[in-house]
């Protein structure tokens, strides 16, 4: 099966274009926009870990190493498409237009952070593994029934493909020809469990065969292939031809979340080697250098812009009003039932708050 589903690349780890048919399509403008987003989300990710260490946000799920998968796929979307991220795709959500302040609020224990900016269809991060996959199928089917050309993208990891919801979602979407892209980031570990213990399948892409939909295995650290293959899958979806399963093979350098230590379950030397050899940002940097497009001043400039944007979001997050306990009660139902109403009144009275 790994022969049948080879890992496809446009750009190899040395920044050399290995698929000549893409030479014209990979423009300087595109590459620079990718680079900027890669840097932007990596800087955010590092900053978020540091905020967690300082106790300024809660447990955080880092994605460093997976930036190309998130940037390439998110930039392939149209603004009116749906995004169903998991707790590790805030990079993708940020690139797609989510508010950075809200992403930080989410990680700081506030449901206010789940609200996407006006007009953006971004679901709150899926927490129970694979459960967002059927939602994406349903939202996509709804778009089809409304007669729009909008599509949906559902993100999930390698471990998610062992869950029933993965199979039920793919089956449902394939039966209905729902316009959805199932975007798997195979970072090869589900918390501590390596992929060999997760599945006997050699690839995740091959699971598409069972649903008679296209399955493709790509280098998830090659932002070009991620972008172009996601675009292709989205176009196919918009044409009414149904879903596609994309397996983007990647690697997270760090922990599953800030609550675990990866050295406990794997040799972190491998992460160091991957960082040198296959890192998504270094790879694009090599291409830019090969093309004579790399400019130190420009890089410092985009880094400074990103740092400023992140700092401003942190200030906004920290200036956000404190948690209002009424929030616990006010959004359970459109109208609170008597139980919720009384519990709220009683609690607010007890803490001396204002009763509504």
């Amino acid at each position, binding site marked *: 099966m790994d022969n049948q589903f080879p890992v496809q690349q446009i750009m190899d780890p040395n920044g050399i274009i290995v698929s000549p048919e893409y030479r014209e399509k990979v423009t300087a403008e595109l590459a620079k926009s990718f680079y900027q987003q890669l840097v932007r989300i990596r800087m955010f990710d590092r900053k978020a870990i540091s905020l967690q260490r300082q106790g300024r946000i809660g447990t955080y799920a880092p994605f460093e190493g997976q930036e190309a998968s998130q940037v390439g796929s998110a930039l392939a979307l149209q603004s009116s498409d*749906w995004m169903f991220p998991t707790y590790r795709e805030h990079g993708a959500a940020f690139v797609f237009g989510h508010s950075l302040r809200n992403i930080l609020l989410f990680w700081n224990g506030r*449901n*206010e952070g*789940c*609200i*996407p900016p006006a007009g953006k269809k971004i*679901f*709150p991060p899926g*927490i*129970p593994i694979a*459960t967002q*996959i*059927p*939602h*994406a*199928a*349903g*939202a*996509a*089917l*709804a*778009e089809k*029934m*409304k007669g729009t050309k909008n599509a*949906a993208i559902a993100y999930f990891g390698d471990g998610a493909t062992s869950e*029933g*919801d993965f*199979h*039920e*979602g793919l*089956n*449902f979407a394939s*039966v209905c020809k729902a316009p959805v892209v199932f975007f798997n980031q195979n970072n090869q570990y589900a918390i501590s469990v390596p992929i060999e213990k997760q599945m006997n399948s050699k690839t995740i892409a091959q699971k598409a065969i069972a649903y008679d939909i296209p399955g493709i295995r790509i280098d998830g650290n090659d932002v070009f292939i991620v972008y172009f293959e996601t675009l292709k899958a989205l176009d196919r979806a918009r044409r009414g031809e149904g879903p596609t399963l994309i397996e983007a093979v990647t690697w997270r350098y760090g922990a599953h979340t800030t609550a675990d230590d990866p050295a406990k379950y794997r040799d972190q030397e491998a992460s160091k080697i991957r960082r040198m050899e296959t890192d998504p940002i270094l790879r694009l940097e090599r291409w830019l250098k090969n093309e004579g497009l790399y400019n130190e001043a420009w890089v410092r400039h985009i880094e400074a812009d990103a740092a400023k944007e992140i700092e401003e979001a942190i200030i906004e997050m920290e200036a956000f009003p404190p948690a209002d306990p009424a*929030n616990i009660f*006010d*959004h*359970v*139902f*459109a109208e609170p*039932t*008597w*139980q*919720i109403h009384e519990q709220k009144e009683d609690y607010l009275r007890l803490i001396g708050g204002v009763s509504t």
Partner: protein
Amino acid sequence: MSTAVRTKTMTLIQAINDGLDTVLAERREVILMGEDIGKNGGVFRATDGLQEKYGEERVMDTPLSEAGFVGAGIGMAVNGFLPVIEIQFLGFIYPAYEQIMTHATRLRMRTMGHYTVPIVIRAPYGAGVRAPEIHCDSTEAIFTHMPGIKVVCPSSPYDAKGLLIAAIEDPDPVLYLEPMRSYRSGREEVPEGKYTVEIGKGKKLLEGDDVTVISWGAMMPITLRAAEEMKAEGVKCEVIDLRTLFPIDRDIIAESVKKTGRTVIVHEAHATGGIGNDVLAIINDTSFFYQKAPTERVTGFDAPVPYFGFEDHYLPNEKRIKHAIRKVMMF
């Protein structure tokens, strides 16, 4: 009433079909999803003829995958549709429990109302029809425990149609439990066209001032018979059909218990963690000092619903209900 409402004699299942037909005709966003609901019209024929009338897209036969199609229904609900999802039997809803518990019931909370899930999940429940195992569960309480979903359970054709339309119009998820043993056991006049029965309101089926007997769904006919039979012993029962299991009609319980001072609660679900306990809590909170006797509960046993060869022993019956009524009367 100046204009007479046209009515039709219907069974409970016909009233459900008529309710679905009414909303499908009225609102384009309403879609039905479930196993065998299309050509077959559902295993109980609740959706009979509706696919023919409204098409395969709006009356959708789904793959056999409760988590998958409830999950997809959530996605459709968030994206502007009003899915009414049929679970073939309540005992088969468990694969979808996660979707209901972790998504349908809390998307509104997670997004402060930005995304909401106006779905209805219909499920026939209960024993007493000689069905195979797992087809007879009455596990409503594992849903009333979930914040963010309403649970209703009609006992009559009139309420079945009115509550169904109310559930579909409700902006939040509603679990609509159908007493399968009552599907065809009785008929009554049901208005044509649209009307609703308010969610959260019980109904007094019999007036009395000696003892309050509270039940719902498939237990109503048995409870009513037991109450009628107690008249011969000079006991006047006040019988209440809760109709909604979350949020329970507290006022109807309190008002009656304050009058009678004696209560019997009847449900076919297991005793432990059952909704009878919530009714007891309401009595405690509202009418504690009015009580003349400890409340009795007549329930299914804390054993899995047995094979149907044993179900007559498992299900509450007139004998057990009357025994409980005598017990509270003689305390």
